[in-house]
């Protein structure tokens, strides 16, 4: 089947973060990110501190840097935006080296970069330590409605199958001399996308048939429940607590 998107995100391991129950980790991660976002933008030092905390979390996973660093690429659009911000924002201007930039723009840009990187790092720490199966179980535990859990779980399962289908269609087109170089190729690409959609839809119908044939009645059975102790929750929520305290302190001081 080859390697598809999302395939090698999770890395086996036995660290504290690997062992922590997935639903605890998920709640902890989301709460941490929300708290970081709540920190007022001018508090760069506090944000930097939280970034260090996030780096610490990633280091604690013991996953090699070459696996982690490429994942940071998802932040690129925000980084670009952050770089542009000081130049386009209005308000009082300050001199940075040879150029004059907007004061508020600069503050916002630095905060954006710090918060963005912290968020991405926290998500990476979660993703590399959580197998897809546990992510699905975590959603189930957190009472996410069954249809959404199923959509997530089918995406994990079928992303490779669909990617493979797409690849085969590409090869089939290319073998008949097609190349997508000009606008004239667009109708062909659109038709291909349509065909892929129909195939996926039909696959969905067949999967549904297979589920019904094995006694599916609309409810997802919880087969192996995750278990979390009070200590797990304490550890999982600790980073979020730190961030929330930091945010509250900054808000009260300013």
């Amino acid at each position: 089947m080859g390697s598809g998107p999302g395939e090698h995100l999770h890395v086996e391991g036995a660290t504290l973060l690997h062992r922590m129950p997935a639903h605890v980790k998920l709640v902890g991660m989301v709460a941490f990110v929300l708290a970081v976002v709540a920190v007022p933008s001018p508090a760069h030092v506090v944000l930097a501190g939280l970034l260090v905390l996030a780096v610490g979390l990633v280091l604690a996973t013991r996953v090699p840097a070459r696996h982690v660093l490429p994942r940071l690429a998802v932040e690129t659009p925000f980084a670009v935006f952050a770089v542009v911000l000081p130049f386009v924002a209005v308000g009082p201007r300050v001199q940075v080296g040879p150029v004059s930039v907007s004061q508020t723009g600069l503050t916002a840009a630095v905060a954006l970069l710090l918060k963005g990187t912290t968020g991405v790092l926290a998500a990476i720490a979660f993703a590399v330590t959580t197998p897809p199966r546990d992510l699905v179980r975590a959603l189930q535990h957190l009472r996410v409605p069954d249809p959404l859990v199923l959509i997530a779980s089918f995406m994990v399962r079928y992303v490779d199958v669909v990617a493979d289908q797409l690849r085969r269609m590409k090869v089939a087109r290319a073998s008949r001399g097609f190349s997508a170089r000009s606008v004239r190729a667009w109708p062909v690409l659109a038709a291909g996308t349509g065909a892929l959609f129909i195939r996926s839809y039909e696959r969905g119908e067949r999967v549904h048939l297979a589920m019904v044939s094995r006694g599916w009645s609309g409810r997802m059975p919880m087969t192996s429940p995750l278990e979390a102790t009070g200590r797990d929750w304490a550890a999982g929520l600790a980073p979020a607590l730190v961030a929330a305290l930091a945010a509250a302190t900054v808000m009260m001081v300013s």
Partner: protein
Amino acid sequence: MTTPVLDLRGVAYAYPGGHQALFGVDLHVHPGERVALLGPNGAGKTTLVLHLNGVLSPGAGSVAVSGLPVTEENLLEVRRRVGIVFQDPDDQLFMPTVRDDVAFGPANLGLRGAELDARVLEALEAVGVADLADRAPHHLSFGQRRRVAIATVLAMRPEILVLDEPSSNLDPASRRELADILRGLEVTILMVTHDLPYAVELCERSVVLSEGTVVADGGTRELLADGDLMARHRLELPVGFSI
């Protein structure tokens, strides 16, 4: 006379679009039998299979599984008794790991905990893939996926195993291994196939379906030796193969 595991009487079915696929099919399969369901493309084999566990319900006629009529209120029990293995294992294996997938059926029947784990292991061992329990289905070879697909159904301890094209896309070695596994299972089997040598190898009895009706029912060897019948219903043995 024992109660037949499958008892179909005058089953007729037309798809909502209006295409009539089955015209009054009669079929009985008794406990312990291995029966091949043969027939050309479009004969209605898959349509027939979908009647066996109530996914489709006949426009006329009736279906009963070990005496239990296939009706709305019996659906869950019927689906436990009739285990269908579909042609493409990617359709059958939809959970993140092999273990979860095999557990899906028995869990729907209400099994939990140690009992469920034991059932999963038993099914995986029956097809010789217990070591794959924690793998993701999309990382398995096609032959492994086909076996796991069979395990997902065996885990429900069905009375009859219905297989749609079990030997398709398998290399010769996997094809033979699967035959050994199927022969070793103590369960009634109905096997839809275009692979006539496979039918000869595994099933003493065959039923030929053509254009929505049963046109022949008897010993597999005798049927396949009947050149006329074979030609009339577009059935061909591979070149070089003789009964």
